[in-house]
């Protein structure tokens, strides 16, 4: 969609420390110019999604439901998208070049870091951190996640189809930055078109393999994907993919890496899936970070009916929004406008011990028992049942015929355990 004339760019768009603003009200910025610098190693810079004037720096509503330090940029006569001349040329990363094969690993990683690239699958973990594994953890495999993280979301599929070349270049760059000989792109078997295209494009690099995997939720979860593709099992938290020699990156991230390294484009736009029955024209749109939700709703034909719930992210793990006056952030993989019919109120009933939750849990936990322990307040028992290992994928609550709040109780239990730990150490 066209660039909006006003963007609200939160500075907390990734896991880790928020970025620190380096612009002030009244500054003129070029498209792509850095407006905030990383606030630590696990952090990422933020760039201006549009050219214009900074009109506000301060707390604004964040999709997460809390106020967050943000930079508001408004397009101005002569510098906006409508301008024909006089606009400053878009800012590009210095040092980027199509000749990336000559760059060193450190140079590549630095470029990726400066481009503000974070995992676009939804977790928004800064990419350069994943590319800098601690010494002593040898990495031998790069896994590219082309399995859609959640139902309803199709943005990864579109990226694989429409930006095949960028994805493959990105994979090759990531491979080089990590120094691994092999990469596997895992795509769900119901996307033969994407598999075929990627396969063709990968023909020139024999270190990349495209593998079809089973269609099931949560195949797109890191640990599940690694297991499906390699048979390796990532140990429970704090175990990371690193521990089994694997780094996982999303296909959208790979495409962003390619754009950053070859063309110097910082990460200031992404593909978002807009869907749900309440939106008139469900679609995948490429939007600038910071675009207000209402602009996207208008672009997608407006609302077909009043939404009962608006979810940012996927239906299983996404967050429901309290307000439509929030912007798209780097982690926004989807915007789902659900009608009342699609997400009815859930009243939990007693567990009938059908065993489905435990059977469905990708981590082989017993959600019913964990939830029961949390309900009666027996946190130690919940911990003994591995509550901390739950990745909160929501499968158990989705499948439970009694509509029990399984993952919800797990989250509550985790929060209580966290509180308890802090109290004890205090």
């Amino acid at each position: 969609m066209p660039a909006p004339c006003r963007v609200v760019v939160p500075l907390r768009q990734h896991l880790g420390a928020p970025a620190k603003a380096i612009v002030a009200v009244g500054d003129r910025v070029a498209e792509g110019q850095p407006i905030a610098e990383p606030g630590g190693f696990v952090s990422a810079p933020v760039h201006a999604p549009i050219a214009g004037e900074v009109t506000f720096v301060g707390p604004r509503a964040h999709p997460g439901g809390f106020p967050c330090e943000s930079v508001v940029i408004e397009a101005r006569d002569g510098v906006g998208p409508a301008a024909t001349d006089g606009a400053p040329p878009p800012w590009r990363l210095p040092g980027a070049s199509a000749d990336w094969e000559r760059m060193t690993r450190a140079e590549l990683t630095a470029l990726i870091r400066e481009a503000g690239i974070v995992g676009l699958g939804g977790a928004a973990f800064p990419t350069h951190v994943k590319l800098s594994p601690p010494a002593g953890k040898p990495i031998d495999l790069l896994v590219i996640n082309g399995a859609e993280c959640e139902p309803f979301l199709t943005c990864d599929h579109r990226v694989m189809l429409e930006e095949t070349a960028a994805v493959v270049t990105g994979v090759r760059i990531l491979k080089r930055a990590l120094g691994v000989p092999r990469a596997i792109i895992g795509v769900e078997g119901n996307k033969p078109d994407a598999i075929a295209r990627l396969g063709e494009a990968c023909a020139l690099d024999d270190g990349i393999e495209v593998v079809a995997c089973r269609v099931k939720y949560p195949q797109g979860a890191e640990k599940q994907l690694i297991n499906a593709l390699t048979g390796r099992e990532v140990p429970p938290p704090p175990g990371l993919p690193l521990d089994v020699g694997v780094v996982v990156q999303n296909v959208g991230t790979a495409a962003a890496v390619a754009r950053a390294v070859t063309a110097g484009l910082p990460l200031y736009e992404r593909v978002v899936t807009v869907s749900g029955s309440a939106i008139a024209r469900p679609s995948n749109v490429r939007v600038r970070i910071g675009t207000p939700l209402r602009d996207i709703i208008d672009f997608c034909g407006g609302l077909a009916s009043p939404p009962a719930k608006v979810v940012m992210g996927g239906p299983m793990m996404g967050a429901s929004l309290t307000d439509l006056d929030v912007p798209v952030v780097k982690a926004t993989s989807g915007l789902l406008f659900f009608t009342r019919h699609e997400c009815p109120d859930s009243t939990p009933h007693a567990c009938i011990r059908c065993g489905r939750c435990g059977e469905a849990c990708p981590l082989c936990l017993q959600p019913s028992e964990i939830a029961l322990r949390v309900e009666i307040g027996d946190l130690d028992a919940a911990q003994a049942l591995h509550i901390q290992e739950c990745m909160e994928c929501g499968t158990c609550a989705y499948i439970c015929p009694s509509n029990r709040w399984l993952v919800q109780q797990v989250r509550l239990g985790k929060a209580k355990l966290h509180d308890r730990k802090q109290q004890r150490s205090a």
Partner: protein
Amino acid sequence: MTASSNAAPEGAPVSAPPPADKVGASARPTLRVGPSPHLHGPETVPRIMRWVFLALLPAALVSVWFFGASAVKVLTLSTLFCLGVEWLCLRLMRTPGALSDWSAAVTGLLLGMNLPPTAPWWLILAGAIVAIVVAKHLFGGLGGNIFNPALTARVFLLVSWPTYMTTWLKPGQRQWLAPGTDLAGITEATPLGLLKEGRLSELSAGASDLLLGNLGGSVGEISALALLIGAAALLWKRIITWEIPAAFIGTVAAVTGLAYAIGGPERYLAPHLHVLAGGLFLGAFFMATDMVTCPITYRGRLIFGAGCGLLTAVIRLWGGYPEGVSFAILLMNAGTPMIDHYLRPRTFGTATARQGATS
């Protein structure tokens, strides 16, 4: 949030604000907020229970064919009594649940199918009270019970009124039996009953009669074929899984087959007749698989089924009662918490962790 966005300094926008004629886009729709997941699967408890109820119907209809009015009476009264008692319990005891969850209807139909067609109304009422009040609501209502309600009631009635519980009508006696009718001459013993009394030579029913239900027995247990049809539907709908029935029936076949092979046909019944006779199919497909009272893990269910099969065979071959399915299932119900405790599944990733630690 609203306040902060209103308080923001507004520069002159370059383009006009979004058109206001779109539904809700510029207005502020009331949004509901809740934790994820935001979608829910199609399966619900009433749906599961309704399927079980439907799956029991073929067998119920077969017995209406063979036993006529008596079967209709037993099945209807039992279902209505159970629903009535459930309603009272829900009102008076305030345990969780609702009539609309169909669980009481399933219990009622199952209870009726576990009674002989000659059962008088007061026997059925007593059964309904034991099933719903004692076995279910005293344990906390749906989901809290340890023992299968219908089976608990059946066993209670069997030990309290053994004669009433073992007066089996001959198939084809479809007429209405007024209270006090002399039943002599229109009743017969079940194959397992004959076996227990050592009158195996009098057994006339063959495998095909057992399949179709052309023999004396409880209202719902006579036709193995009809039960299989219902069970197939449940398996296909994934409402029950194969573990318990397979382990249950397999073990019964294995143990009785062994006894038959060693002890000879004079003293023992052939394994295929054991499998088809009595309440085995009803028990294995519809009662042992009761989710509330069987182990929660699928691996545990294999053990549970095998245990049921072993106990059933032992009771049938050497116990005091001709039929052991009900006792076997109830005993294994009692063992369920233990099976669950010892068979916790291995958490994902823990194997590699252990490998890593030891290597």
